[in-house]
């Protein structure tokens, strides 16, 4: 199954993105806790792209594609025309250092890395894709 969603690049749209992801995952009998962490990971990547990639410009948009196969292999593509930050090679800061520096940001991508199985940046001629994958154990 494949689902897609396109929204303007505003922070206020994050709530709609979360609702979309939850709605899709709920259809596939994924546990509530798994749904909530996956929704969080997608929210984090989209927030990052909207804020840092597009400076919250409502004239720009990002696209989200979700693919789910029969074995509950989940694939989330965040598709954009700007160059995406390479989360795959991102070095996690230590939580203790973030606290000492009293920074309010910089931990979202740690969450994404801990939640997802794999993160890949695919650069194509006209678009870039941030592909997040996760295998859900069938219950």
């Amino acid at each position, binding site marked *: 199954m494949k689902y897609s969603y396109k929204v303007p690049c505003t922070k206020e749209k994050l709530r709609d993105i979360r609702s979309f992801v939850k709605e899709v995952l709920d259809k596939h009998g994924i546990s509530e806790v798994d749904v909530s962490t996956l929704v969080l990971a997608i929210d984090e990547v989209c*927030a990052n792209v909207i804020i840092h990639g597009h400076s919250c410009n409502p004239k720009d948009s990002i696209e989200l594609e979700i693919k789910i196969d029969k074995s509950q292999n989940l694939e989330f593509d965040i598709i954009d025309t700007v160059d995406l930050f390479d989360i795959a090679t991102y070095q996690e800061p230590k939580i203790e250092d973030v606290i000492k520096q*009293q920074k*309010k940001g910089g931990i*979202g991508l740690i*969450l994404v890395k801990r939640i997802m199985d794999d993160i890949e940046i695919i650069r194509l001629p006209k678009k870039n894709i941030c592909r997040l994958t996760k295998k859900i154990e069938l219950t």
Partner: protein
Amino acid sequence: MVDVKRIQEGNYDLLTVVGDVDASSSIELDNAIEEAIESGGKKFLIDCSNLDYISSAGLGVFMSYIEEFRKRDITMIIYGLNEKVANVFEILGLDQLLVIKQTKEEAKAALG
């Protein structure tokens, strides 16, 4: 969307967080904590029983005060996290770095 109410109860300030704290709304939580500090309070209880969702932006707000609270001898205790929200704190290990209790009674007892 998030609403943060602040009520003074006895020797502490109670901040009640209602709704979703994400990248668009975390500033509200930040402002509320900042105002509570500016008003001179030294003891804060954060009621999260109606906090439906938190992303890193919200966690970042709580984390950013840990050091300041330590230096200024301010105590903050969070309580009432639902299972999904508690899980987010745990993924980052914040349940070990912040004081989190299940109920208001436990939180008040820990506040001293």
